[in-house]
């Protein structure tokens, strides 16, 4: 049992890229700015139909929490786990999980890089792990 994202036309490119091992965010073809999560139009210059750019997949931990009580039966075996907000090198922030270290070793500002976890045949979630 896994908790997986439902997809819309707006969000599908993000998850399809993740399945191919790429982390992407939206980018405005007119003004060049990037943001996340996806929007139907650029929030800065209002141009419709934003494109997507691949990002480096690096960033730092902006804030985090170690969850020790599950809020869903599907998460009961995942306890304890880390929810983090990672600030990407390119600027936008993503909600993610931290893997590849003890839950007690996560620190604010810690450099991290993306790692991809296939949850089902269809869905891959980007997680982040400490840069060695």
């Amino acid at each position, binding site marked *: 049992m896994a*908790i997986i*994202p439902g997809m819309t036309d707006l*969000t599908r490119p993000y998850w399809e890229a993740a399945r191919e091992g790429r982390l992407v965010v939206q980018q405005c073809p007119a003004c060049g700015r990037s943001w996340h999560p996806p929007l139907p139009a650029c929030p800065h210059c209002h141009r419709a139909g934003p494109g997507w750019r691949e990002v480096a997949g690096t960033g730092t931990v902006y*804030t985090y929490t170690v969850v020790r009580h599950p809020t869903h039966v599907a998460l009961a075996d995942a306890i304890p786990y880390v929810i983090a907000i990672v600030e990407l090198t390119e600027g936008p922030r993503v909600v993610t999980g931290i893997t590849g270290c003890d839950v007690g070793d996560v620190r604010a500002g810690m450099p991290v890089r993306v790692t991809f976890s296939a949850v089902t045949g269809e869905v891959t979630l980007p997680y982040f792990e400490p840069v060695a």
Partner: protein
Amino acid sequence: MIRREVAIAGIGQTAYGKALPGTAWDLAIEAILAALADAGLEPADVDGMCRFAPPFEPVSEPMLVRALGIPELRFFAESPLGGEALGAVIAHAAAAVMTGLARVVVVYRALSQSTGGRFGRADRGGPSGAAVSDPQADVVVAEEDNRSFAWPYGLMSPGQLFALWARRYAIVNGLTDEDLTRALGSIAITQRAYANANPSALMRDRTMTWEDYRAARMISEPLRLFDLCLENDGACAYVITSAAMARSLRADPVHVLSATQTISPYREPMGIYVTGELLELFPPATADRLFADAGVTRSDIDVAQFYDATSYMPLRSLESYGFVADGQAWRYVTEAGTGPDSPLPVNTHGGHLSEAYLHGMNGVLEAVRQLRGTAVNQVRGASVALVGAPAGSATILAR
């Protein structure tokens, strides 16, 4: 501006409990009848209603007009976004009365968390409360307000969300874990002591020491069990009329001085993608407007009821509403505190942490009791009160 044009003429509530008999519909009816009786009014006098929008408020206007025999509502409005509706419902009720769209507006909130969705139960399908019929089946999170980007990582509850906020507060202000524990614990323990004197409080008979607080299990670090609000059943209601009508109904109406609602990018519940610092619980410009519209200053506020899904929220509210300088509330709550003898008593009923969770509505009722002089933890001479939720939703009330 609302400034004293309308008033709260009556308040009502049910008992609060972990599993009350009756549905949310039953509870809403009981609270509304109590509020009308408190105001000296009958259901037939009601011509307006304001409520929290579904799915938060499960009891609809058609259900209530049928059950209460209200001949006709000519104004009814719903405010979205959960706790962020707290100031909005009073603003809408005031606007309706001031424009003549309605004369007697009932505002209500009924919860039956024992039968509906709860955040704290790990044996069911998360905040939706849905029973899990097939434990092998994947859960597909429908995209709505970016939740499909959060739930797959196990970010589903306000408690987890405000754990992320609280951690960021500690990072930005250079707090150690012990500094943060002492600040959050000060809030939780102070509110518990208030609740111990409150016959309505779920935690009336359960005292809490520092040892109790520290020994409680971590739910979502840095938040422990007693940093999180209760989950329960119950209902609250109040009646808004013109100030003139309220004064004809009772000797001690509570006047509405101001009320605000706002929405900005990513300020909705669980909206975590703000591009600035993850610290702005209440927009400073809206706080300034709240006080300016009311015609009072911060030093005029005698008592505050801050929305507290977690203990972090009253802490940061002291800063966000401008009572304490940014980055200083963690020290302030451990030194001056928020108790009966502090400069600004906060959540004098025990709040969501220790009285009951009623989406902030029980804080409105407590503010009214404080201004009538009938609160169990009465602040002597209280004449102006603030009730504050996150994201620009708040009200200032006065005798």
